């Protein structure tokens, strides 16, 4: 490889990118937009469950001593109708409509029915928890013991216990923003490659001392640096480099190289901006899924964890939000490195074939 030739290509491509107003504006506006959105997203998690109750509940409330400190806030409503309206309006997450004479009926051992009112989106497990809570309240009111012995349970939390300090949506979205920036720059590189192929400037280049490997290397380096630098800006702006900056930078660099590989494929297959966009989206939309999956608690599905972009999103998330370090990220770095090599090799192979058959 001739470094002089690669350097000449890098200078030329940088110039070409700077002069492409569309991508410059898209990059600039995109960065501002993502940073703006990030600032608007709440940086804390409201862990209090707001519950509405109606009916004969005076004794119940005194006995249960509900208050905000236990993660449950109880609002009282004068009637079942008012409670239903409040649940529908989203003022409370769920409601318990106790019938008039509930306390007396429970005390006398008479059958009684309590309505558990929930909105459409309430998780089914919370609905079940509310039903159980009603039964427990009934036992308490009647003065009877539960039919089973009280179990002793020990909470074991692996890692840092985030109870009361959950990872905010803002923190969960960092990998997504980083990936969006990488994606835009991948499209920019794809367009540059497609233009080079369509205008057949690559033919002119290949009858000079520049070799095909110089051309491929320059595109890979340019795409990786472009994507990395843009991602770096967003990571700094989103405060993602406060913990383990070298680790975050390392995985971002690998991620930039990986999307560059896919960009080379999109650029080779595309004939113009629209077709490059089409091919880029075809690769990038599945690749963005892992970053999206990390926005929600719980473990991602197996196929998501198998995606090339999962290690990138995982390391950024766990490092910036959960305080993970090199040891925890080692496996992901190896996986990402392997994906990076595979994507670059595949992209170079497709581009080389396209150049040869031109």
């Amino acid at each position, binding site marked *: 490889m001739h470094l*002089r*030739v690669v350097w*000449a290509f890098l*200078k*030329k491509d940088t*110039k*070409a990118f700077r*002069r*492409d107003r569309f991508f410059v504006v898209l990059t600039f506006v995109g960065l501002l937009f993502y940073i703006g959105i990030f600032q608007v997203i709440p940086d804390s998690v409201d862990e209090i469950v707001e519950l509405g109750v109606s009916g004969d509940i005076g004794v119940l409330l005194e006995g249960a001593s509900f208050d905000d400190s236990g993660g449950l806030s109880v609002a009282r409503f004068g009637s079942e109708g008012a409670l239903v309206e409040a649940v529908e309006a989203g003022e409370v997450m769920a409601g318990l409509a106790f019938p008039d004479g509930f306390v007396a009926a429970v005390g006398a051992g008479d059958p009684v029915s309590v309505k558990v009112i929930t909105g459409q989106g309430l998780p089914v497990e919370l609905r079940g928890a509310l039903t159980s809570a009603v039964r427990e309240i009934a036992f308490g009111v009647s003065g009877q013991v539960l039919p089973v012995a009280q179990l002793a349970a020990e909470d074991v939390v692996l890692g840092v216990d985030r109870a009361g300090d959950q990872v905010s949506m803002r923190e969960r979205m960092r990998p997504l923003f980083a990936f969006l920036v990488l994606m835009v720059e991948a499209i920019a590189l794809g367009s540059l490659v497609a233009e080079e192929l369509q*205008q*057949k*400037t690559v*033919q*002119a*280049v*290949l*009858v*000079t*001392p*520049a*070799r095909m490997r110089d051309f491929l290397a320059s595109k890979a380096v340019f795409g990786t640096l472009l994507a990395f630098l843009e991602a770096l800006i967003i990571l700094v702006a989103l405060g993602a480099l406060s913990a383990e900056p070298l680790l975050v930078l390392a995985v971002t660099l690998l991620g930039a190289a990986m999307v560059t590989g896919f960009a080379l494929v999109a650029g080779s297959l595309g004939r113009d901006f629209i077709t490059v966009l089409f091919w880029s989206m075809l690769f990038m939309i599945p690749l963005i899924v892992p970053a999206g999956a990390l926005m929600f608690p719980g473990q991602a599905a197996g196929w998501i964890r198998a995606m090339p972009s999962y290690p990138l999103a995982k390391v950024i998330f766990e490092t910036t939000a959960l305080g993970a370090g090199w040891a925890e990220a080692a496996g992901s770095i190896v996986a990402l490195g392997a994906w990076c090599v595979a994507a670059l090799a595949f992209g170079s192979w497709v581009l080389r074939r396209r150049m040869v058959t031109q």
Partner: protein
Amino acid sequence: MSQPAIEATDLHFAYGDHEAVAGVSFAVAPGEILGFLGPNGAGKSTTIKMLTGQLRPRSGTVTVLGMDMATASAQIHGRMGVCFEEKNLYNNMSARENLDFFAELFGLSIDADEHLRRVGLGDRADDRVSGFSKGMKQRMMMARALLNDPDVLFLDEPTDGLDPVSAASIRGIIRQEAARGAAVLLTTHDMHEADELSDRVAFINEGRILALDKPEELKLAHGQRSVKVRRRAGEGVDEVIISLDGHGSSAQLADLMDDRLMSIHTEEATLEDVFITFAGRGLGG
């Protein structure tokens, strides 16, 4: 002939089942201009792609400046200039930036403005190529091909799209390059240009070289020499064509030299006529 600058030996290439080049052999000496003539699809572009190292021949060898293209393409490319038919310039860069970039690929430090002045674009050095006319782009292509003072020049339709004055200027540059010692392989559809510039011409059709010789020799050997005599005939004009190759042509001409004679024109065979006698079709089809 001295050591050839370009030597093609029994080149073959096929696109699938279609054999585009079927055993092409020729050589070009330093300082020689070889016109490469043939209709579209005759195999000219494929041959040039093999000669410039863009395509690997299925069989046969390409030797340029004594080096095998299969093993020494980088060294050959450093001493070669190519003017493509396609205007493959970086449109979003200025004329000067285009030349500077390619000079960097050659590892050269050049005065781009001087190269641009040579092709009549000295005053457009800072303008982006995207704003250039077809003729200006063609001149840029020539300037780029000459950046490294090449020992071998491949010129594909170098005057395509140029006005007569610019075309004459480019032809002058081609002659200068040949005079400097560069071997020039010139592909053109313009028979007059080929006739005017080429030391020798090769006719190629259906992947094979049909004839290769000096234009004059080809015209003499395969064309018909004749004169067209125009004479007054009452109110109209009478035209008579007399072959100079036949017996008694002098006597025939003498008979026509009277006061009704209006004009006599030589009817020399053109390269196109000669090509038709070989290929059975013209260069346009």
